[in-house]
């Protein structure tokens, strides 16, 4: 049996590290999804942030280049508001991969929901006072 001493600080560090791992894959999906319409680095970061997904510039900009080098994005330099900007959009291969990733994500999400929800339901049932008066629940109880 391993006994680990967990101080609040080490728990925070651990949470940060796990959160980072969890976010890493999700960010790729989010970026690909957002680039169905063409955008350049800054506006993409802003739109992700507006949708509740805050991402550092130093993470996003290199990620865009990596996804492009993997063939999932296409880019083009174009002038906008008197400045040359590099606009990215989803490539056909990227669109295909995005569909597959979304399918996988939904599957994982559904599995986790199934694992977490009964537990949550049990706990909320235990905590709740008085017991919920669900007509269907009462009916089922009577029937049993």
């Amino acid at each position, binding site marked *: 049996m391993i006994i680990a001493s967990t101080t609040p600080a080490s728990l925070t560090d651990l949470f940060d590290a796990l959160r980072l791992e969890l976010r890493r894959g999700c960010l790729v999906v989010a970026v690909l999804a957002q680039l169905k319409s063409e955008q350049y680095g*800054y506006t993409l970061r802003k739109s992700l942030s507006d949708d509740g997904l805050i991402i550092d*510039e130093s993470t996003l*900009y*290199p990620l865009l*280049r*990596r996804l492009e080098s993997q063939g999932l994005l296409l880019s083009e330099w174009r002038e906008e508001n008197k400045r*040359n900007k*590099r606009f990215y959009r989803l490539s056909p291969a990227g669109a295909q991969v995005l569909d597959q990733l979304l399918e996988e994500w939904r599957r994982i999400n559904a599995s986790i929901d199934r694992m977490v929800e009964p537990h949550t339901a049990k706990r909320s049932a235990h905590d709740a006072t008085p017991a919920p008066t669900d007509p269907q629940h009462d009916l089922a109880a009577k029937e049993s």
Partner: protein
Amino acid sequence: MQLVDRYLQEVKHCLPAAQRDDILKELSANILGEMDDREAALGRPLTEDEQIAILQQQGSPMVVASRYRHDQRTFTFGRVIIGPALFPLYAKILTLNLTITVVVSSIVMTALGVRVGLTALFWPALLQFSIVTAIFAGIEQSQNKFHILDRWNPRALPPVRDPLKISRANTFFEMFVNLVFVLCWLHVPGATYAVAYLFLGPAVRYLEAASADPLVYAPAWQIFYLPILLFVLLSVAQQGLNFAFPRWTRSRLIARVSLSSLGLLLTFLLFRAGDLFLVNPEATHATQYAGLAVAINAVVHYSVLGGALITLCQIAWQIRRILRLTPQTSSVAAAF
């Protein structure tokens, strides 16, 4: 947008050379796009503090550059000793240190008559490796604990360097050294003594007291005397021009390449000339100086070779500058 230029200049140093220009162009567009957006929202130009806030949000130049590298190499020994942000700088400094150590050790060993081999070079190289690794491991630890790389100040970024500007201090120093050389070369009374005193201090009196110099110049110097004098005088003339007008132009860079090529030719001929110093047969105990002559000739031989390599690098660098110097090139664009 001086601050942005200063920031990009720092990022540039740590970026992979192949993608450097493209990354900087894109990063610049993103930062300036964000600033434009903020200005439009505020309806006024950004203050310096607001620009600094945007730059700080991007991350420290070293960290930003490290994210663009694909390799993400680390130095790991059980656990990560040097992380991906510091590793490229560590690798660069370690390579430089080891190269200098191997070259200098080889020259010293050859001059002392010690056989140059892997075993002899192992300990100095290991010492350099240990010192550099310990310093970088310390920085990495500090970064993990205190996040020193995140606590950077955009105001402290160095000013944008103009790649076409010639440093007057460097030019003055080069000119001074060359003029002293000319004085010694022409045997101006007192000049050689002053230089010898600078290196040897009061011990120079022992040289004076000697009945005859233990070594004399080889006859080959008679061929090289005037060309070397001419070469140094031409260098002084160009340095004088650089001091008066401290900015590179295409024609001056071409003149510099021509002069460096002449220097390369001279060093090549000197390298092929064989022994440049001989034992003075008139010196007392002349036979004892044979070893000294061998050592000095070896040092001169390798110094000439080193000088030729340095000159070759300088020529390559100057040619690269000429090729990058288009008539429309602005200083900042040339820097990036």
